[in-house]
């Protein structure tokens, strides 16, 4: 049962990675792409980590997986903000309909 849940989580994570890529390719400007990519990818990685943690039965491994996810959250969020600021400072205007 737990194995099953882990597998489902991993598959969900893969789907979120796909949606992030679709956003990266289809959205009109840097800011919307950033918006799609950072959220979808962070969540996707979280789901993959959670799935693997369910499959693993070792506390240390689960802790390491959690640490990896936390690191990606922190650095991903900050980096997105930095890129957006840099783009804004370079005079790229957000897309408007």
């Amino acid at each position: 049962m737990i194995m099953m849940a882990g597998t489902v989580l991993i598959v969900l994570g893969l789907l979120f990675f796909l949606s992030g890529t679709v956003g990266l390719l289809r959205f009109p400007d840097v800011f919307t792409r950033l918006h799609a990519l950072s959220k979808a990818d962070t969540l996707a990685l979280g789901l993959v980590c959670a799935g693997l943690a369910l499959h693993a039965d070792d506390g240390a491994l689960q802790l390491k997986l959690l640490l990896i996810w936390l690191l990606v959250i922190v650095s991903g969020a900050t980096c997105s903000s930095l890129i957006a600021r840099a783009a804004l400072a370079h005079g790229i205007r957000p897309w408007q309909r």
Partner: protein
Amino acid sequence: MHPVEVTFDALLLFSMVVLAWQGVHARNMFRAVVSFMMFGLLTAVAWVRLEAPDIALAEASLGAGLTGALLLATLGRLGPERRGPRRRRAMKLSMLPWLALGLVGTTVLLAVTLSLPAPGLGEAVLAAMPAAGVDSPVTAVLLNFRAWDTLLEIGVMLLAVIALWSLGQDVLASTSRLPAPALPALVRVLFPLFVLSTFYLLWRGGHGPGGAFPAGALLAAGLVLALLAGARVPERMRGAPLRWAVGGGLFAFLIVAVGGMWAAGAFFAYPPQHASILIAIVEIAAGLSIGVMLTALFLGGEPTEVRRGRT
């Protein structure tokens, strides 16, 4: 090999080749550098596929991480690329002999691999492992059986630092005007983690993949991040203390090597009962010193001494 594995390898290697081509020939310099960084990431995955996690670790930290940052920093200091008129046709024609050469080379390589008896040194290393003082074969080769290579490798890095420092003072240490309030917060969160993982990798080095170079790279990454977030090299660190930190790894290595000569009769002969503690000392000293050296490489010049008025 399962077909999925073969497909994975094929796609991985194909992407690597495409990215390598982009990295060399992309029209836009920034695109070339980003492609090259992605190429580094994929190379690390390729090392994993080749069952070489230790190389993957070094590639991830040194190859993809620090080289990429170094290239980006350099790119910011170069003007736009001046370009002569392009001769596309001529370039395509000039590819032909290279393609032929590559094909011939590949065929020869394939023939050689398939016909070699390929005993390698794997058995010999495994046989010598009990006396090595560490559990990881790769670390044993690096720090015991062929410690001489590692000593010279640290020497090469030290030479690189000396060469860069003799070019002038730290040219990369300019700051940007862009406000980035999130950055110092990020560094405050990450820096302890960098130091922690440096020591984790040093400790891992004895048992499995890890060791002085990836650990040093992580330390360097932490220091570089701090410098990018606006930290300065503290004034009392400049000059002599910094030079000691840069040279310390090589110095400790040499002392251990010469000590081995005195105690066991040969350069780098560790007495077997002390081998693991000696290797640990060398590894920690080398790791810290490598971290400082890599940061120095990133800075691209000696941090200026501000003592000019006082002497």
